[in-house]
């Protein structure tokens, strides 16, 4: 492990890797800061352009977009009270209150210091924990992988919100889509309807660009979002150790909360940010100031959100299950590069894994430098008119999906999924389960059939080994708790 870390450290400081991280951080900050453009959208948008790059460069670029994007969300939350990401919603009240008091610089600096602290702690958690889990997962056979794939599907419960039933329908629909193409064991073409372009299955990149980028653009167009005409006054504010020191305890605690929550599939930055904010308010000597311009509130929410950025990569890299939407997209990036996420990634591509893990730490340092230099320009970024922005992003989306296979079929798939991603949520159907199922579907099918071949058709194989049993119990728990919570909640409300 020591050797790998050293190798990763040397690799990450190569100029091409540094350049990729710098580019990713710049792009991520802009995407995060622009209201209406989300982090998954930013990562999905960049994904096709990493296709032709070596895997390490591509992954570092995307990690840069991810970490900086989560931080970027707090910029518009502070300056415009419009959270750029769901995770930055908790930052909006305190941040904007400070902006109104003429302390936007202080709020932005606090957000930056907290984001970087959270990201660094999370990066170290990733570096320490991930190799141990990967080592443990090396003993997994097909039954364990099947149980794991099902466990990964529990993320659906987390991302479906109140409509778990609809989320499951979407998950099942996504699995059906994943079966299109050549069957993984017998090599028989399925559901290609006599066409050639469906034989290799439905490409992940065009689908996810459609689901997360085109759909988002259509939503913005429907709202006819105009240029944000709010004029924000930014005055240079000194910010140093003396400003940071009173909040170190909150930042450390919130970063740890983020580190733990991020590693749980389905939880993610938004949940962590709100839990950290509530925890800081609960333990604060001055809880009344929260929501009215508390720097401690900003520190808790931002470090809680960015504290997940490294740890969400733990289940993705070690077990091949996406922790949230962004990691589902990142997982897609690995698959597209021909790399199979999971314990084998650590044994077969150890160099890449350690470079990326150390990259998470370095990305946060780059984010600090870049954001510190760009902080005075943030107010301008948030005012880019949507009439200019939306067509450019549209063009990039279509171009990105085209460049995957050099064919217009991919563009058609993008548009199909884009319309789907726009219509379905309107009626309460979440689209993230489609992507999660498309990623986990092939793993679930292959491991299920391999297990049944091994056991000569007996389903007892899943109950005779300890790891699948543990996963099955966890699955039951994770699906039953939200259902019971809903029922109890309703009863309590009625009472």
């Amino acid at each position, binding site marked *: 492990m020591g050797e790998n870390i050293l190798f990763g450290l040397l690799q990450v400081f190569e100029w091409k890797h540094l350049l990729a991280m710098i580019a990713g951080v710049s792009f991520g900050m802009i995407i995060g800061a622009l209201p209406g453009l989300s982090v998954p959208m930013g990562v999905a948008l960049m994904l096709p352009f990493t296709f032709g790059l070596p895997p390490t460069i591509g992954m570092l670029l995307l990690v840069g977009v991810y970490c900086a994007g989560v931080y970027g969300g707090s910029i518009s939350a502070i300056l415009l009270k419009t959270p750029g990401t769901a995770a930055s919603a908790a930052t909006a009240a305190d941040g904007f209150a400070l902006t109104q008091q003429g302390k936007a610089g202080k709020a932005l600096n606090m957000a930056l210091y907290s984001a970087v602290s959270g990201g660094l702690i999370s990066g170290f958690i990733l570096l320490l924990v991930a190799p141990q889990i990967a080592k443990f997962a090396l003993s997994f056979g097909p039954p364990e992988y099947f149980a794991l794939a099902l466990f990964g599907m529990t993320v659906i419960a987390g991302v479906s919100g109140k409509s778990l039933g609809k989320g499951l329908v979407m998950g099942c629909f996504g*699995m059906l889509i994943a079966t299109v193409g050549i069957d993984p064991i017998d090599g028989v073409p399925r559901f290609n309807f006599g066409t050639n372009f469906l034989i290799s299955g439905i490409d992940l990149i065009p689908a996810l660009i459609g689901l997360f980028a085109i759909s988002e653009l259509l939503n913005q167009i429907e709202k006819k979002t105009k240029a944000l005409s709010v004029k924000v006054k930014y005055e240079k504010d000194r910010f140093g150790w003396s400003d940071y020191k009173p909040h170190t305890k909150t930042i450390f605690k919130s970063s740890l909360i983020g580190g733990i929550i991020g590693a749980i599939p389905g939880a993610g930055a938004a949940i962590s940010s709100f839990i950290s904010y509530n925890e800081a308010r609960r333990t604060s000597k001055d809880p009344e100031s929260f929501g009215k311009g508390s720097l401690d509130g900003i520190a808790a929410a931002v470090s809680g959100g960015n504290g997940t950025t490294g740890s969400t990569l733990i289940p993705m890299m070690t077990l091949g299950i996406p922790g949230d939407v962004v990691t589902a997209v990142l997982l897609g990036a690995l698959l597209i590069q021909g790399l199979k996420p999971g314990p084998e990634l650590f044994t077969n591509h150890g160099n890449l894994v350690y470079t990326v893990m150390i990259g998470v730490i370095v990305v946060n340092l780059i984010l600090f430098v870049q954001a510190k230099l760009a902080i005075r320009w943030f107010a301008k970024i948030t005012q880019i008119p949507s009439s200019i922005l939306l067509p450019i992003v549209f063009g990039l989306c279509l171009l990105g999906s085209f460049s995957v296979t050099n064919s217009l079929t991919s563009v058609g798939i993008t548009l199909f999924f884009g319309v789907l991603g726009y219509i379905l949520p309107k009626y309460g159907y979440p689209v993230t389960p489609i992507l999660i199922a498309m990623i986990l579907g092939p793993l679930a099918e292959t491991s299920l059939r391999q297990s049944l*071949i091994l056991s000569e058709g007996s389903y007892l194989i899943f109950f005779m080994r300890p790891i699948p049993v543990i996963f099955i119990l966890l699955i039951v728990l994770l699906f039953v708790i939200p259902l019971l919570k809903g029922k109890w909640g309703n009863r309590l409300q009625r009472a």
Partner: protein
Amino acid sequence: MNSKIGSIVTLLAIVSFGIFYFWEINKVSSTSNSISSDFKFFPKILFFLLIFLCLISLFQAIKKEGTKIEVNFKLLAITVFLLVGYILSWIFTGYFYLLTFVFLFILFTIYGERGKNIKRSIVVNVATSVITTLLVYSLLSFLSVQV
């Protein structure tokens, strides 16, 4: 459309997709005598699961009261129409860069605010379209993508 009707229509569309899927998989003959190792095995499980989940959701949707969902279709319809038009003209003419410029210019114009200085808007939109098209060109050249 009412959220209740929308929800039911969506579920019915998914069920129809599932039935079509089931019919399609049954057209192909099996590769194995064992049910579990056959390539139809997993899709069939998914089909029954999908129908089961859809029925539950359908039951819930019928019980639930609907709310009116307002959608501003005008601009959306224009955008989708333009997108399809752009792709079709790309297929038939092959003038990718010219079409990209025209497509972007139209989008910049229809998304922009009306009532402003028209001459200035046109100049800004043309300039932005040219710059974006050049950006697309350099990006595609960098990625060695043939259009």
